[in-house]
């Protein structure tokens, strides 16, 4: 039997380790499958005068090309229908690497070679690559900015004993999912097309493909069994690939597959937003914050994509765990001549949180305090000092207990003192330690996204099939949902099968994003279970009388009226009695609402919390460093599956650490991304893992809201625990100047930035 709360392994674990788990590129290609490849711009900004594809069309194996002129429907793949993201541009090229056309050939290799033969006549225009360049050049916002305001900032600042005004640069991040983008489109009769697509958002791929083809959504079916990683990079970025595959499949009436190589994947798809933040913080002698003002400008790229909600979420998390009595936060979602940035685990939240932590550092160094004391002094209160900049009251605050427990188990105070003593005598290797919290709001801020459906069949042999709107990208969503269903029916997990997510099984799904997969789809699946159980209870009452009203489903048995029926027998009888054994479940998150114009509401159903304590050692001659130890205590409410949750926490921590350490995106002055593959873009390796890495779940926590089994979302919140590594690096850096100055590291803190920061501090000391 399997229940929620147990350490059930990932349902595909054996397939993973044997190589038998099929990803989209592993699906046997139907006979005659053709292959598409994109031809891309080598100019960052310019007027497209002409596109000569004659050599492309004449190349070996080429069946034809697709340009903007071949688009039967709307030439737009914008996730927010902003009409600013063409499949292929017709007038203006907006970034280096922008797809201009596609070529279709008999093999992928031939298509790829042919794509190189295009001649694009582009009249070069001036470009802006960075947020600050764009602001200086008067570039527009790609989408409407947001302002969050509470209290009186001017008064707060005036009252504050200390004020610090500074800036922080925060780098972006490539998803570097191991499986890149891929779509396989198989044409059907009439307008129909079926797509196998590596996507977190099958419904969006369906809607966009239908729009590009100019057909109704019911003509398009999108399926995804699993992804080789998503992390937000497949929430909207599959739109282009799915559209090209579908267009080609319909045009030539053959199956068409498109799979960019890693370089094209990284150059032509969006990433985490870089931010340039200007902040001012006013605080009292005890380090209590009086007022905060911040402008969060983001490198959004050439189009809106999800930059609106991403920059919104940055503001929603610019408080992290801290109460700002007076606050004004504004976003500047800047247009730039770079690829349009998109969702990435945390969705702007991490860029907000790290600024809150920077302000804590400013205060701590200004007052000569332990940053943890500054954190504590500013934690949200319980019953007071508990209103966020967006006017939501923090009702489920567990920061004190969580942080207190971690502080104690890690022996933080003593270790910090030891480190400071060590640094006083160590010539080249300096150590640093930091304990940072995270509070992360759970729910899509686009309120309508907080809904989910599930389709559940009980077959007459007792086996169960579940479909739901979520997608599996490694997080173990299908495993958790199978646990929920198995527990609801009291049957063994082996009876529950979950396969492909498909838009013809469950319609109008939301992206598997915002950490919401289990919260939403788990509840929808449970709803379907409850419907069937109610019918089964009705059947039992009808068959065996009123004493069977309280029918129980446990241990593979159905218990009613003192009798015990084997599950399969019971189901067989229910079928014979013509009971409907299929149900569509549905769920929508209660309580949430959000008025963006006013900047007020309750966008989040609840918060997830966590804390991490990291210790680093830094080589002051090269800036190279190592994470010596990291301890995490994370809140997942009442865990549905502790090992899967722990896996999410560990993986998120390392990914967050990567974002802030070695993962550096570097564009040359022509606008070409030069870190476009793992040879140049460095995500953490096994040897970058903290030497000692202790991850615990806060077992005492349970969600006060009525979520699925009182659990909490886990995908994104622990990503921000990686900030503890960044802050620890800052601590080590500050040691070279006696901790008298805020180290003001920019992110990512590559060895170079660390070394240069130490040099700066020594110079300024």
């Amino acid at each position, binding site marked *: 039997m399997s229940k929620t709360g147990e350490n059930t*392994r*990932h349902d595909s*674990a*054996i397939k*993973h*380790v*044997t*190589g*038998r*788990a*099929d*990803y989209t*590129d*592993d699906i*046997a290609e139907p006979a005659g499958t053709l292959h598409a490849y994109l031809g891309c711009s080598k100019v960052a900004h310019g007027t497209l005068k002409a596109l000569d594809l004659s050599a492309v069309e004449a190349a070996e194996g080429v069946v034809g090309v697709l340009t903007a002129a071949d688009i039967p429907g709307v030439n737009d793949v914008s996730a927010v229908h902003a009409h600013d993201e063409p499949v292929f541009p017709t007038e203006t090229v907006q970034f280096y690497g922008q797809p201009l056309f596609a070529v279709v050939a008999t093999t992928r290799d031939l298509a790829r070679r042919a794509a*190189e033969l295009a001649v694009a006549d582009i009249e070069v225009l001036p470009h802006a690559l960075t947020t600050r360049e764009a602001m200086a050049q008067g570039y527009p916002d790609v989408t409407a900015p947001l302002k969050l305001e509470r209290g009186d900032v001017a008064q707060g600042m005036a009252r504050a004993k200390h004020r610090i005004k500074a800036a922080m640069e925060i780098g972006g991040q490539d*998803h*570097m999912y*191991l*499986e890149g983008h891929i779509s396989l489109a198989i044409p059907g009769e009439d307008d129909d097309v079926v797509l196998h697509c590596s996507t977190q958002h099958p419904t969006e791929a369906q809607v966009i493909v239908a729009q590009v083809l100019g057909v109704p959504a019911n003509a398009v079916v999108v399926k995804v069994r699993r992804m*080789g*990683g998503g*992390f937000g990079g497949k929430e909207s970025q599959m739109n282009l690939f799915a559209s090209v595959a579908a267009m080609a499949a319909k045009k030539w009436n053959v199956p068409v597959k498109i799979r960019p*190589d*890693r370089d094209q994947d990284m150059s032509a798809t969006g990433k985490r937003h870089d931010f340039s933040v200007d902040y001012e913080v006013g605080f009292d002698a005890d380090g209590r914050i009086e007022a905060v003002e911040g402008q969060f400008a983001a490198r959004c790229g050439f189009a809106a994509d999800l930059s609106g909600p991403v920059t919104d979420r940055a503001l929603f998390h610019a408080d992290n765990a801290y109460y700002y009595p007076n606050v004004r936060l504004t976003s500047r979602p800047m247009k730039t001549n770079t690829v349009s940035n998109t969702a990435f685990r945390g969705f702007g939240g991490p860029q907000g949180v790290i600024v809150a932590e920077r302000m804590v550092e400013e205060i701590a160094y200004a007052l000569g305090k332990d940053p943890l004391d500054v954190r504590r002094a500013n934690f949200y209160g319980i019953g007071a000092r508990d209103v966020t900049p967006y006017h939501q009251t923090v009702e489920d605050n567990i920061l004190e207990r969580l942080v207190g427990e971690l502080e104690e188990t890690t022996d933080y105070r003593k270790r910090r003192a030891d480190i400071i003593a060590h640094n006083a005598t160590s010539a*080249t290797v300096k150590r640093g330690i930091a304990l940072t919290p995270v509070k992360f709001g759970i729910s899509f801020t686009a309120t309508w996204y907080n809904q989910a459906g599930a389709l559940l069949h009980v077959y007459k042999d007792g086996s169960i099939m579940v479909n739901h709107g979520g997608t599996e*990208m*490694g997080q*173990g969503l299908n495993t958790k949902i199978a646990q929920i269903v198995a527990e609801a029916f009291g049957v063994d997990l082996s009876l529950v099968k979950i396969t492909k997510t498909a838009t013809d099984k469950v319609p109008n799904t939301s992206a598997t994003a915002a950490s919401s997969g289990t919260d939403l789809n788990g509840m929808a699946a449970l709803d379907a279970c409850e419907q069937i159980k109610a019918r089964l209870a009705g059947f039992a009452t009808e068959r065996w009388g009123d004493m069977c009203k309280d029918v129980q489903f446990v241990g593979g048995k159905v218990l009613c009226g003192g009798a015990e029926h084997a599950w399969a027998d019971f189901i067989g009888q229910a079928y014979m009695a013509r009971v409907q054994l299929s149900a569509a479940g549905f769920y929508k998150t209660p309580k949430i609402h959000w008025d963006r114009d006013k900047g007020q509401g309750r966008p989040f159903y609840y918060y997830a919390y966590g804390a991490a304590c990291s210790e680093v050692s830094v080589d002051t*001659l*090269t800036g*190279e460093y190592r994470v010596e130890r990291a301890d995490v205590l994370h809140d997942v409410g009442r865990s549905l599956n502790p090992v899967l949750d722990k*896996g999410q926490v*560990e*993986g998120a*921590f*390392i*990914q967050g650490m990567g974002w802030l350490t070695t993962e*550096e995106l570097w564009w040359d002055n022509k606008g070409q991304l*030069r*870190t476009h*593959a*793992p*040879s*140049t873009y*460095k*995500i*953490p*390796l*096994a*040897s*970058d*893992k903290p030497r000692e*890495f202790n991850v615990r779940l806060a077992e005492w926590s349970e969600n006060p809201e009525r979520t699925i089994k009182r659990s909490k979302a886990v995908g994104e919140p622990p990503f921000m625990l990686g900030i503890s590594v960044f802050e620890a690096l800052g601590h080590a850096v500050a040691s070279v100047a006696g901790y008298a100055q805020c180290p003001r590291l920019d992110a990512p803190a*590559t*060895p*170079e930035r660390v*070394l*240069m920061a130490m*040099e700066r501090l020594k110079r300024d000391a």
Partner: protein
Amino acid sequence: MAQHRNEIRFLLNGAPVVLRDLQAQDTLLDYLRLERRLTGTKEGCAEGDCGACTVLVGRLCEGALVYETVNACIRFVASLDGCHVVTIEHLRGAEGGLHPVQQAMVDAHGSQCGFCTPGIVMSLYALWMHAPEPTDEQIEVALQGNLCRCTGYEPIFKAARAAGTLGKPEADPLLAERAMVTAALAAMHDGQRVALGGAILPTDVEDFAQVLAENPDATIIAGATDVGLWVTKMMKSITPAVFIGHLSVLRRVMLTDRALRIGAGASYSEVEALLAQAFPYMLPYWHRIAGWQVRNMGTVGGNIANGSPIGDTPPVFIALGAKLHLRSTAGVREVLLEEFFIDYGKQDLRAGEFVEAVELPLAEAGVLHAAYKVSKRRDEDITAVAAGFAVKVERGVITRARIAFGGMAATPKRARLAEAALEGQPFAEASFEAAAKAVGDDFAPLTDWRASAEYRSLVAANLFRRFWLEQGAAREAAE
């Protein structure tokens, strides 16, 4: 002219393969996935940096069968003649079912999205074969060439530690088949030159020289860790392509009482044991060259012959006074390694000539050595700055300094001004401080995505300070 064979023969998992319709640039990964539908091996990057395509290749090495991990994405099929390719599909336990490494990965929850998993399993399998009870350091080294974006690696470490408790290498099915495989591979070696699809596999070193004389523009392919990318990334033509990985004479590494002689075809992994014996200080540096798969494929000769300004072996070898043996049908000539690099992309290599070996003179008494590599990420990253130090100290005076840098100029280059600042000076902190200042005039490095010019210059100077701290200050403290 001798009889040529026009087919490539190898073992794939349990069965022999004979290929006649093959092009020089065909990669093992495409062959596995597209021709054989062995889709357990994945493409993550097609440049040998992510490890999702890791497979084992077994080959006869001086008669003994050795298995090594390689990146199938940049391994050319033509280079597999006489080899045994083992993919994830071939793994099984002693009694069938899951292999101990696979079982350990399942038990430890070592997979999430699963895309990197087959490659990780293959790397852990290779580790388990020779170290069933690995240390954490061995696990780190074994996984240097495998990226996982989901797990944060912790459960993979647990799996690596546990695999040995679930089964021993002695019971491994692959080991049980060893005699049969050895015989089958031995039978494939017929001593003939192989030529097909623009690929040429010479019979021996003499024949290699002959092939080059006939095809002076040929691409020489040893480990293919660079040339592989010319194909997968740049879609360049590489024909005619001379494959030399099978020439075991070129792979020999010999340690005499005068020098370490490294055959140009020896992989980094093959060099490791004797290098560590002759120059123990170099081992940590060696482990920071690429990942395990690339060290199993890439060759010292290739690293030198390519003339890259950021190759990892030249700076440390130049510091040792390394000599190259260059060979052609005209004979062999010797060149000092530091003189081999003329300018960016230009080496002292004549038409029809190839690097046959590199010779590292053993250290004299009184010479202090160091090898430094600085990169953005510690492991499996391309160098920002690399340096080799050889400083001779006699009676407290620096009598000779040979210090070479990579990443600081268009070629690997000695820091002549810094050397001059040291020579004749007392072995003291002030001398190294002077050299740290002087090295700023030796080089005018570039800014790129790996590092800025300022950082490179500062680090280069600091490496002199490091050398003093490690070799001088430490010694002073000891005395």
